[in-house]
């Protein structure tokens, strides 16, 4: 029996339909980024949180021990000292970086001779690798060979060398100063970029209305710069809170843990000491602080009134 031929109408292939689908294309373009985030962000974060609930050690898989690591940390004076140090370090350094960075940005926004040169010079501390600048500060703060102590002695201002990194208070102030020096360029250059987006016409109009320089800054510059400040300071706080290299090179957390940050303590316990679970728990304990900084910035940015320089 002859089979009747059936005319099959060929529609567009699956591939071509996918190629024309906006949704499929969007998904396709997003997939690589999503995969990267998953592999390099979500997975390590998840692993870190999991490790914090285990007694994993270097070279030995651990077992789930619940919140035992956190209970130990709760009663650990060195951990709480590192929390205190981290908050002090972050708050002090961030405020100083903001004030000095904004001041520098305002200066660089003026019509200066050799403006480009100065802008490039300002970036130098940011460009120099952290470890190198930390080593430079190590020499500057050396208890025997400090150039600062030497200069002050030569000027007759002090009669003995300053114990920069040996005294707990001095050591804290010294590492904060080093961090500020290194972080100012980031704040200054980012705020400078924000300043340059403010239309000159606003300043001209306000000047015609008789506004003083302070009023120009308070009612024109600051409101329009607020979103940039929020983003810049969020990043600055995150970088400062998670700082490691400066401390590691300058003090290793000493003297007597006076400069240990949560990040350095996490490394010391987790890697050098082999207690991966405990090290991870310390690192995880940083998350609430970091989250708070991000949420503050995020919700702040959503506020229209805040963006426009108004209060709540």
């Amino acid at each position, binding site marked *: 029996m002859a089979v009747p031929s059936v005319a099959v109408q060929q529609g567009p292939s699956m591939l071509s339909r996918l190629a024309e689908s906006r949704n499929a294309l969007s998904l396709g373009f997003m997939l690589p980024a999503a995969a990267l985030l998953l592999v390099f962000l979500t997975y390590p974060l998840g692993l870190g949180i999991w490790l914090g609930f285990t007694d994993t050690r270097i070279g030995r898989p651990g077992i789930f021990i619940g919140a035992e690591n956190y209970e130990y940390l709760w009663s650990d004076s060195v951990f709480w000292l590192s929390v205190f140090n981290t908050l002090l370090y972050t708050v002090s350094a961030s405020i100083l970086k903001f004030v000095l960075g904004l001041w520098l940005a305002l200066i660089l926004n003026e019509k200066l001779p050799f403006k480009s040169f100065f802008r490039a010079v300002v970036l130098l501390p940011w460009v120099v690798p952290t470890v190198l600048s930390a080593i430079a500060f190590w020499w500057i703060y050396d208890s*025997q060979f400090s150039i600062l102590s030497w200069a002050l002695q030569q000027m007759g201002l002090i009669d003995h060398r300053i*114990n920069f*990194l040996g005294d707990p208070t001095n050591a804290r102030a010294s590492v904060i100063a080093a961090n500020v020096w290194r972080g100012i360029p980031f704040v200054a250059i980012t705020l400078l970029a924000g300043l340059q987006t403010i239309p000159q016409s606003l300043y001209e109009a306000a000047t015609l209305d008789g506004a003083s320089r302070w009023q120009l800054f308070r009612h024109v510059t600051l409101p329009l710069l607020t979103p940039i400040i929020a983003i810049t300071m969020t990043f600055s706080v995150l970088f400062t809170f998670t700082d490691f290299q400066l401390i590691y090179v300058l003090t290793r957390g000493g003297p007597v*843990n006076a400069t240990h940050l949560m990040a350095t303590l996490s490394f010391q316990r987790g890697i050098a000491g082999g207690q991966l679970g405990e090290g991870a728990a310390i690192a995880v304990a940083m998350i609430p602080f970091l989250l708070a900084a991000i949420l503050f910035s995020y919700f702040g940015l959503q506020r229209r009134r805040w963006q426009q320089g108004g209060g709540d």
Partner: protein
Amino acid sequence: MKFTRRDVIRTTAGAAAGALGSRLVGSTAFAQEGLTYKPEDGAKLRLLRWSPFVQGDEDQWLKNTKRFTEATGVEVRVDKESWEDIRPKAAVAANVGSGPDLMLVWFDDPHQYPDKLLDVTELGDYLGKKYGGWHDGPKQYATREGKFLGLPLATIGNAIVYRESWVKEAGFSEFPKDTAGFLELCKALKAKGHPAGFTHGHGVGDGNNYAHWLLWSHGGQMVDEKGKVTINSPETLKAIQYAQELYKTFIPGTESWLDVNNNRAFLAGEVSVIANGISAYNTAKVNKDNDPKLAEIAKDIRTTNLPIGPVGKSVELFQVTTAVIFNYTPYPNAAKAYLQFMFENPQMSDWITSSAGYCCQTLKAFDNNPVWKADPNNAAYAKASATLRPNGYAGPLGYASAATMADYVLVDMFAKAVTGQATPQEAMEEAEKRANRYYRV
């Protein structure tokens, strides 16, 4: 066991014959007496070692490696890192299961990841038998439950390095041998404007060496034989009180010192007495022709062992380095052959000699290496392997001892008390609490 000239000739001839033989017949194995590993076809090795403190050490290590490659055809890439960065690198390699085939690690490292290391018991036993046995201290770092997790490579001795003229100026014709006399000397030196300086900061080597000497010389110990924390004791209290008196004689700032500060201060003429490896003296000696000041200092430097305390004998920590092979290596035989080659007499003798007193032998047959008599200042480092006490004495080596040291529990105890941040009793109690957290296992 003495190493005779006949042994030297026989072993050297064996190695030479092996090298020649491999070239002639194309074999990748090299001849050794008693134990031979045949490297896998196409084997290539990567070793991570610490950056040298005495250049001769690295130069000779590389020369020996080249000899091995010539003898076997196995290429060995030697990388180096700052010695303090070896521990994290090794930890990552052990955990991830990837990285260099061999590493020269420090202190308790092999006990932190014993399951990740290749068992080299056969090789360890062979070398021990052939070369008069291993010194007990370094062997403890490299063995666990009777098995070799690696081969104890060297002990980096720590000794008093001092300026002879200043000690004489302080009224001492010779360096005191006990802790009481030592304190008197340091007081006199301070009065003459030449203070001493010992690391109270987070210096991995110098900080720990000094703190352990303070503790052990007074009879204190972190834990007992069973691993029970016993740091809170009358002996520890005496050690802290002694440290407080000694600290008063120091140059200001030692609580911030890391591993290199004491060398720098000493070579700059800022301090008269430090505790250090031979590298401090070696730096002055090597550079004396280019720097008249260093020439003057080199001439004046003397070394001696740290004073003996109430405990009545010399008890010190020292740094021990162990050569380990990770069990993920695709070339275990090549790696074993490499270590065997490096430990055999011609290579090991040359390496110890070139290290100029920095690396102390772990095999007893090399005790009489000429280097220990080549310079009177080397003698203080000659018996480092024989006299050292392992970390975490009197307890077992392992996770707890490693973590306690890495967390600077002992270093902080002394630093806190000497700087007045805590009373000796408070410092001791805090150290006890911190140590208990690690020794809970």
